[in-house]
């Protein structure tokens, strides 16, 4: 699957603007992880709900790191900038498209390798409670992995 991410690059990405500075196709994965992509383009449409929160950065996109579990295929590009108010089901749909899942394939997402957030949970909410090192780690798999 090494060259699959070329095709998803321009259509349907979680943050098409951001993808330019994180998604340098063909480069080593490690490069992705170090990119400070939050510096670009503050999104003026976002709600002010997080603006006075001192514990979390008051940005409108968060870094989501997607890791496979079990027999799930690896995504070549793992780290994505996602709008805070996007629901978890949006992330699942994105992964399914990226990995070219068929309609019948299921996908499960886990936080902390422990619980599976409700599909309508906003990723920003998860980040506020379970983010670490400035990013939210989500594990994905094709069968139920935990609990």
């Amino acid at each position: 699957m090494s060259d699959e991410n070329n095709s998803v690059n321009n259509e349907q990405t979680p943050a098409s603007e951001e993808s330019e500075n994180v998604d340098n196709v063909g480069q080593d994965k490690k490069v992705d992880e170090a990119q400070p992509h939050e510096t670009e383009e503050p999104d003026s449409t976002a709600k002010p709900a997080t603006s006075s929160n001192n514990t979390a950065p008051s940005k409108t996109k968060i870094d989501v790191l997607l890791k496979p579990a079990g027999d799930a295929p690896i995504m070549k590009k793992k780290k994505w900038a996602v709008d805070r108010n996007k629901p978890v089901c949006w992330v699942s749909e994105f992964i399914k498209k990226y990995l070219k899942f068929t309609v019948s394939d299921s996908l499960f997402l886990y936080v902390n390798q422990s619980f599976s957030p409700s599909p309508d949970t906003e990723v920003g909410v998860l980040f506020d409670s379970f983010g670490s090192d400035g990013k939210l780690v989500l594990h994905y798999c094709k069968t139920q992995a935990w609990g």
Partner: protein
Amino acid sequence: MAEDREVLREIWEGRIPVCFTLAEEEVYSGEQPDPYYLLVPRQSYFPLVTDKVQRHFVQSVDPEKHGEMWLEYEGQPLKWHYPVGVLFDLFTNGNCLPWKITAHFQGFPEEELLHCPSKEAIESHFMSVVKEADALKHRGQLVNNMQKKDHKQLWTGLQNDKFDQFWSVNKKLMESSGEDMFKYIPYRIYQIDRPYIQKLFRPVTEEGDYNTLADLLKSVNGGESTDNREEVLKNRRVLIQGIEPPLETPVLWLSEHLSYPDNFLHICIVNKIKNES
């Protein structure tokens, strides 16, 4: 753990009288069926208690068109994955009994509601929230160290409305002494037309004082500017389990006693006067 068993039992026994009617425009054969009355536990989820409602109405709808039953109150679709008591506190302002809910079999609002394909889906949602709560309280250690049968007992206790069965396991998750002191309080704050708020909040300050409900409300920004927060709260009610707890109540106590079975403290902020908004 929680000490006051009487409080726990009172909370557990909270019931809401509900009057279900079938959406008029969906009546297919014959006359509008009679409404269906049910006393619904606050702690439960609608799909756990509405099988009979579904059977009562399904014969009156178009067999060609009907899909999964969903519920609505005054135009507001009701999310099955929120506890019944949360939906009631948030949308009714607590002042209309019986609660008049409309049942639908058509036009499922895909954007607003999740499907509920089976009882297993409710169980897996419930257990996930319990795990999330324990991740906040005890880094997930207590729930992960439990046996599968303990998880099952939590669920069947809720499903069958058995207080003792549920609490004999849940008391372990509510352990908050010594090393098991809650690290963070699992809470969600709901307001109409907004996503809920959930952030990290410690039960005790660095100085060792208990954080109160007022402290919790201060710590979150509900989209209002900080300056007029007190003014805003003057016109609002803060409801947990249908109760307005004094704002000086320690959040730890609330978490131990007024949490829903999913181990979260669900807090609704609603307007004082119903027509104000």
